């Protein structure tokens, strides 16, 4: 891939209910922070991409609500409906195609809608939707399938909650830092067996933005770039019955593409840090395995040995992850931003020493059906 870099990042604080803010207010805050971070004004931006979803926003053409706030006036602009990793991937494409700089932003206000109804709407209206299936109940089926296949225990899943909620104390943007023990997680009520309340992410309000630039523009800036080394994305089957839910085929395929572009042959050795999709604790374990950071079925033990802690050999979700803040479409973009900050050495209190190569993951659809993987690095 031709060199492309993230040259500016911006996030709002993630909160349960930012009732004072419209979608536009959130987007403007994130975009102006990203521009400031890049040392740019809106005039330095050639093209804009946005990320929103008509269901989550309760608006057809949801991008209309932020057309002023995203800075796209008199610029080419488009919208990717899906996780921020996918939208930002398309931003990279536009820069590779010849645009110098692209501002990409995504927003979400979970406080304004009823999440089970909205995630129920991703299931087939003829065969599945009437069951009341949603993101939580479908995840429970997947968690059980995965845990049964590899003998993963609820204690092993609980470690993820303890670790990531703890990490969130050092991230000023995170919504839900919690001091927890494994016993606390195990004692929390079942939402859908085997998933308990403290295995679940919250629902968040917030927005994030990045400025992506081609090599020439990136090098002319004072801003520290985080270079995009590889991007892969891939989609699995739709009907849950068509998949072996314990497997991570799409994630493995996406990783393979991203690692090949980045020249990574042994991710377990070459990746220094990962920010993964942990809306439910078991998903972090599956992600670690799917990204090739440990062998299949071993992420529980890998985590138990402290490898994925902030001071571990391969920190995972040092930011606190989605389980601490889950602004759905923004989630994957936040993972990219965290990786960029870590590579730049700008992650503040949760900075991990010596991060040269970092991996971010994002997800669309039921049970991680569509997966996107980014590899970021410190060198062009």
């Amino acid at each position, binding site marked *: 891939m031709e060199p492309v870099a993230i040259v500016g990042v911006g996030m709002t604080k993630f909160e349960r209910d930012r009732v004072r803010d419209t979608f536009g207010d959130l987007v403007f805050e994130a975009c102006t922070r990203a521009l400031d971070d890049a040392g740019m004004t809106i005039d330095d931006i050639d093209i804009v991409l946005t990320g929103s979803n008509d269901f989550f926003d309760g*608006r057809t053409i949801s991008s209309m609500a932020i*057309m002023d706030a995203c800075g796209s006036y*008199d610029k080419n*602009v488009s919208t990717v409906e899906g996780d921020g990793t996918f939208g930002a991937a398309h931003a990279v*494409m536009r820069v590779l195609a*010849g645009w110098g700089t692209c501002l990409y932003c995504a927003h979400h206000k979970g406080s304004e809608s009823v999440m089970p109804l909205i995630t129920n709407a*991703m299931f087939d209206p003829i065969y599945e939707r009437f069951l009341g299936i949603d993101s939580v109940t479908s995840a429970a089926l997947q968690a059980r399938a995965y845990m049964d296949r590899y003998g993963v225990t609820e204690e092993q899943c609980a470690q993820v909650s303890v670790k990531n909620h703890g990490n969130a104390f050092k991230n000023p943007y995170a919504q839900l830092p919690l001091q927890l023990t494994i016993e606390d997680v195990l004692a929390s009520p079942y939402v859908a067996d085997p998933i308990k309340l403290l295995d679940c992410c919250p629902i968040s309000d917030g927005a994030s933005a990045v400025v992506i630039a081609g090599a020439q523009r990136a090098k002319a800036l004072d801003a520290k770039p985080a270079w995009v080394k590889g991007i892969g994305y891939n989609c*699995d089957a739709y009907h849950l019955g068509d998949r072996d839910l314990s497997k991570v085929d799409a994630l493995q395929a996406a990783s393979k593409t991203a690692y090949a572009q980045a020249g990574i042959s042994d991710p377990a050795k070459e990746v220094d840090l990962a920010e993964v999709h942990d809306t439910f604790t078991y998903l972090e374990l599956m992600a670690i395995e799917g990204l090739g950071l440990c062998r299949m079925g071993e992420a529980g033990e890998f985590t138990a040995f402290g490898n994925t802690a902030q001071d571990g050999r391969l920190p995972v979700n040092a930011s606190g992850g989605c389980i601490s803040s889950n602004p759905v479409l923004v989630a994957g973009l936040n993972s990219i931003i965290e990786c960029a900050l870590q590579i730049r050495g700008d992650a503040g209190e949760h900075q991990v020493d010596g991060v040269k190569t970092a991996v971010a993951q994002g997800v*669309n659809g039921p049970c991680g059906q569509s997966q996107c993987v980014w590899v970021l690095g410190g060198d062009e």
Partner: protein
Amino acid sequence: MGAKRAGIVGVGMTVQRSTRRDVSGVELINEAVRAALDDSGMTRKDIDAIVIGNMDHFEGINYVDTWSVDGSGALGKPIMKMTTGGTTGSTVAMGAYYHVASGMFDRVLAIGWEKNSESDTTGAIITAFDPFWDRPTFGGAVAGLALEATQYMAETGATEEDAAYVAVRDRKNAINNPFAHLRMESNIEAIMSTPYLAWPVKLGDMCPRTDGACAVVFASEDIAGDFPNVPAWVHGVADRHLWGYTSDPYVNQHVKGGTWFPAMERATRELYDKVGITDPLEQFDVAELYLPYSFAGLRYMESLGFCERAGGPALVRSGDTDMGGKCPVNPSGGVLSSNAIGATGLLRVAEVALQVQGRAGDRQVPGAKLGLATGFGGCYWSDELVIGKEKPEKARG
């Protein structure tokens, strides 16, 4: 390495009908995809990535990209969804173009579709607008367009009959298009006698509600010679989505010397500069324009530079935009004949591709070499693409 030129090497479309009860949404998508794959001499295996789009609330499906894999062929492949309202189809085309132009993918499938029969179109469109400011009073897409039509007539002296000419022209053209929804020989009197929906817009001035899908295969210049059809090359793309509130687009229009349709005019300027268009009526051999209602066929011609301000009626009545004219507009019958919203912008691109490839059948404009395709939607937003027979000199971003 570096940016790539991209061409269209395959096109597939379903027949456009008011209701396709014989297929589910996924099956409708698959019908277009199979046609596009056949047309480009490929199978599902050959596709590197997919871009799909529709408007969520027309079918009530969240995450259409993941829901549709059995129809789109995305199993085990990269897919993303792009949605911008009425411009969705053209947005998907641009998205697929950029997938190829980036050098990341060689063969990219663009899919636009809609089953408008599955919901209340007006109800779903209203929810596009701001829940505080606009939605309580918004009169739907028809009423929004009527406001523009009133303004246009008041300032130019254009008549309802002038607009009816456009509806007659496009639906007559549709007779030559076996895929079109409304195919009829009509006349101005017949359009004028249809009931008002929102004065001055009548039933006969409006596009229909349609079920349909379209799929288009974009390929990189590196492999563009490997297909049965010669490529239709993308010469340039540009868009502007300027506004977010229903009332915003009317602001500039009434100002003397102001412009009709700022988003379209600004996108047009950028695109024509990139591609080298100075006299569109002479330089384009064909145009497939997203005209959601008849008055657009007057006013948007001005914003696209085909004539002077207020010159729309004279232009269309001169016959220059008819089949056999200088630059036939909508040989396919256009949006006034078929409007499966998420497919509509992509159909414009597909139709121009077929024209410059010389494969448009009974609706072919003889010798067409260069064409313009547009998408309209959102809040008076405009997407525009120039597609030609000749390979462009360089990749243009």
